[in-house]
């Protein structure tokens, strides 16, 4: 059950660039969180910025009763989190949202991450390891600077395939290229799981569609409440049993959606705008 919790920061690690690993203590979140779920969190009670911010749960340690967030500092909310000192507390609601589904037995889970979208896949890889499932993580960014978690993704049974658009590390090109290569190379039954910029999610959705594969995407809209009441986070979705698309809350029915059900933006909305807005128009 999501509930409002006050969570103390227990550890804080600065990665290169604007990235932090922040570990908080909370027994239930540590126990209950599933890959793809998130928390709405805010450092302290300062009035500015007003709202909490959504962050994926990157890792949990039920024994230590802790969970870890992977935070990219991009504005005031993330900055305030990065400035918390161990012992200080944050206001936190979670775990929230629908997690990624468990891959069916015998199916390989192909995880496609762009930028900070890698966060849920660390937990996903843990779950795979625990359940004996098979997976492969494609982790892309523009340059190696966008992959600060590269060295922190070991210790699971999921092989890691980095890709950068400038070739500074791993595959040279977009992350969907090694994904398609892998699929071409005669991999067995697979299911795609993606989290990252909208353009990447859409590309993964097209790959899945072209190959008749199931794909789940974690969307990233602006969220006001995380709990289904502000209706600010909606995305247009049309489920198989429905005659028309309608707005669904990404915070409660998502953030993970079946890629085939998402009404991807048409061309009437400019690309720049969509990418900036980072979500469905």
């Amino acid at each position, binding site marked *: 059950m999501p509930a409002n919790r006050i969570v103390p920061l227990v550890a804080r690690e600065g990665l290169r660039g604007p990235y932090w690993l922040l570990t908080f203590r909370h027994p239930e979140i540590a126990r209950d969180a599933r890959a793809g779920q998130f928390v709405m969190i805010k450092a302290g009670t300062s009035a500015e910025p007003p709202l909490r911010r959504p962050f994926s749960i990157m890792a949990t340690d039920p024994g230590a009763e802790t969970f870890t967030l992977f935070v990219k500092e991009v504005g005031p909310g993330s900055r305030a989190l990065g400035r918390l000192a161990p012992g200080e507390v944050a206001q936190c609601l979670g775990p929230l949202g629908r997690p990624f589904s468990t891959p069916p037995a015998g199916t390989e889970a192909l995880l496609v991450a762009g930028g900070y979208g890698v966060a849920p896949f660390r937990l996903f890889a843990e779950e795979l390891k625990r359940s004996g499932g098979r997976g492969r993580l494609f982790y892309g960014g523009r340059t190696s600077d966008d992959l600060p978690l590269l060295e922190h993704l070991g210790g699971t049974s999921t092989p890691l395939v980095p890709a950068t658009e400038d070739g500074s590390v791993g595959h040279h090109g977009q992350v969907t290229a090694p994904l398609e290569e892998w699929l071409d190379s005669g991999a067995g039954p697979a299911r795609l799981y993606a989290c990252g910029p909208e353009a990447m999610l859409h590309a993964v959705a097209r790959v899945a569609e072209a190959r008749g594969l199931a794909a789940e995407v974690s969307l990233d809209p*602006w969220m*006001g409440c995380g709990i*289904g009441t502000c209706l600010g986070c909606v995305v247009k979705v049309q489920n198989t049993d429905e005659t028309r698309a309608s707005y669904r809350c990404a915070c409660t029915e998502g953030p993970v959606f079946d890629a085939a059900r998402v009404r991807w933006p048409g061309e009437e909305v400019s690309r720049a705008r969509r990418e900036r807005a980072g*979500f469905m128009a």
Partner: protein
Amino acid sequence: MNLAVEIAGLRFKNPLIAASGTFGYGVEYEDVLDLSRLGGIVSKGLYMEPRDGNPTPRITETPSGLLNAIGLQGIGIRAFVRDVLPRIARYDTVHLVNICGDTVEEYAEVARVCDGAEGIAGIEVNISCPNVKKGGLAFGGDPRMTHEVVAAVRKVTRRPVIPKLSPNVADIAVLARAAEEAGADALSCINTLLGLAVDVETRRPKLAFGTGGLSGPAIRPVAVRMAWQAARAVKIPVIGIGGISSASDALEFLIAGCPAVQIGTANFVDPGVHERILADLATWLEQHGLDDIGAVVGTLEYPGLPGPCGTEVCP
């Protein structure tokens, strides 16, 4: 310690009401808090039919504020009565429905459904939503239309009718009096301030709808002023709304003359806000040697106006 208040014949166990559109239909919070602890809950705005609402982005932050153009996405009054009401009616709190309409007739129709539904304690009439193209602000900005809508709703229900006024007017007292004359039992003051945020990169409004409604701490001084003006203009009670996120914020409205308040945006920021304010209100009353919340209502000493005792004139 008595925190209960009576408004329009309804007994609220405390003066803290969840504001429309910021608390869903109530059910969303079932797991997060005990709904029975609330003074009341106002539903998200409801039309006769389900509504998609506006395209996204629908919300954006501004300094100490939230700008939204949800556009009254909702399930429609019948689905509410059928599917939601039975589930929330079991919580012992005052259930109010926020009603909308594209036409005067639609307001009356929705009100009629409410009137027939067990468990709906009263009707808040949303004549002040800035985020729809018809109805909404078009009604709430004009005293004649305000009168017409409120009178039409009044005619079809014996339940308390509580028009919700817009701050996007020159003189809220005029609208408050129009609503009172049309038979309102109480008023809700205020809805959101019309605002515009521009994305300087795309050179478009940050919200897909264009303008939006501004809420949150940023608007509190405007809201307190308007609630106070409305309370002075009418004899019916005025429920204060706008930027409340602490007991002190709530007390500003109570002192200015509102027997109860609604909490909106703060629900998003802190789902435990009601409990926190409730505890702090009780402590405050105790510290001030008061045992009834009613003792602070309308006690503002405004310079040049008669004081609360009715005789003293402040310097």
